[in-house]
């Protein structure tokens, strides 16, 4: 017959007491674990979704070609540096007085985000035409994910700088159209908005870019993303860091590294002309001051600035077209030198 040992009756009360409070504690902690797990899971999923939206920009069709301006041009395709994406563009030879064509001084034209090489809003095609008529050849191309170039995530300069570097490689060693004109002897760059920031990032690594015109560039993309991500998604700001990390996990884009302000001093002694709309509500004009003062920290820096009154983001060309063209041409003529045609 079973007889319980005596020690079990004496040990019972403390065990029962511990189990009662312990069970409650366990339930509270498990509830915490479930809530924190669900919160983090939901946060991760939302961040992933925002990241996919952040990098997506529908590719706009090219609405016109330089032929509409009465200019000669050739379609070109060249690879980006490092990842060799085939980029599409136009090579427009410069027109000298008397109608002779030239490619001695070539300007790379870099468009902004969600645009292409013929961007009407920023006046890219018209400006390319103005460059050509002033005797500057133009290489206008679609960066990755834009126009007729292959689809790619919008990285706001992080990957796009490879496209500008690819354009330099193409001008120096690629199969240029108009072989009779020879290769460019000197190369300059003009960029607007994201294109300007990308050009600054590329020029800091590539000394072949001898002069830079930067129109409406941002000094650092992070403050703009911290404003735009919550605004675009109608979400609280806490999702921005998650979305940026998700973009890094999904696409390898480090938006925290898109800071032209950190590298712009490396462009010196090559001259830079910063242009910005005084009424820019997207990239505030303070970005011009930040970039210009950072560029001036370098010894031998040559920095010009022009704050265009009344111009909103990337609208300086449209706001003061004649003065814009005159100032930019004067800058490039002064820095790249004249083309005598010989």
């Amino acid at each position, binding site marked *: 017959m079973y007889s319980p040992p005596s020690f*079990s009756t004496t040990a019972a009360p403390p065990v029962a007491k511990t189990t009662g409070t312990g069970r409650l504690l366990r339930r509270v902690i498990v509830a915490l674990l479930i809530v*924190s797990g669900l919160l*983090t899971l939901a946060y991760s999923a939302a961040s992933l979704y925002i990241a996919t939206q952040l990098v997506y920009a529908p590719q706009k069709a090219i609405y016109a070609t330089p032929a509409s301006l009465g200019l000669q041009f050739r379609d070109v395709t060249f690879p980006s540096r490092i990842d060799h994406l085939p980029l599409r563009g136009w090579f427009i030879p410069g027109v000298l007085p008397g109608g002779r064509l030239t490619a001695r001084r070539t300007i790379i034209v870099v468009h902004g985000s969600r645009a292409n090489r013929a961007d009407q809003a920023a006046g890219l095609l018209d400006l390319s035409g103005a460059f050509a008529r002033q005797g500057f050849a133009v290489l206008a191309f679609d960066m990755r994910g834009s126009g007729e170039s292959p689809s790619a995530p919008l990285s706001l300069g992080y990957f796009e700088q490879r496209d500008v570097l690819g354009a330099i490689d193409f001008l120096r060693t690629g199969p240029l159209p108009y072989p009779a004109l020879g290769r460019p002897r000197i190369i300059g760059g003009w960029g607007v908005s994201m294109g300007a920031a990308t050009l600054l990032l590329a020029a800091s690594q590539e000394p072949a870019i001898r002069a830079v015109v930067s129109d409406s560039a941002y000094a650092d993309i992070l403050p703009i993303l911290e404003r735009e991500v919550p605004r675009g998604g109608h979400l609280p*700001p806490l999702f*921005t860091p998650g979305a940026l990390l998700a973009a890094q996990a999904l696409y390898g884009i480090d938006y925290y590294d898109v800071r032209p302000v950190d590298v712009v001093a490396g462009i010196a002694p090559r001259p830079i002309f910063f242009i910005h709309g005084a009424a820019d509500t997207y990239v505030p004009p303070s970005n011009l001051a930040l970039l210009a003062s950072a560029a001036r920290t370098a010894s031998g820096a040559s920095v010009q600035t022009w704050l265009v009154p009344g111009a909103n983001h990337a609208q300086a060309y449209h706001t003061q077209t004649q003065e814009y063209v005159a100032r930019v041409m004067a800058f490039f003529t002064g820095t790249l030198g004249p083309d005598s045609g010989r």
Partner: protein
Amino acid sequence: MSTRLSASTAVPVQNRRAGGLGTPVLMGLMPLLALLVVVSATLLAVALVRQLTAAAGFFTQQQVSLIFLICGLALAALVYIVALTRTCRRIATWQARGDRRARAALLALLATALIVALPVVLAIVLPQSPAP
């Protein structure tokens, strides 16, 4: 026979009460460790897949990466739940025996809950300076 059974159960309980706290702490951190392993493996796999599918174009690359990440998230959630369930069962057993390891495991589990919530907490408290 009955006396022998009771004695054999009682002796190990006494031993466990006097045992180290390494095992229960590890047990409490198990859901977190499992989560970290799965998330790390997922991120590595996505990085690898992104390289492998780079030539196929952006949309293919994005879809494959997303599928890997979503599967990774689902797997992480599953592993987290399984590890949590196992840990809770073990803690319940220890609690029923009055084993002091239960308290250590519960504290480790609490730490796990706080660490799992850390990304969201950090995102809330992280200073941001949006452009005007």
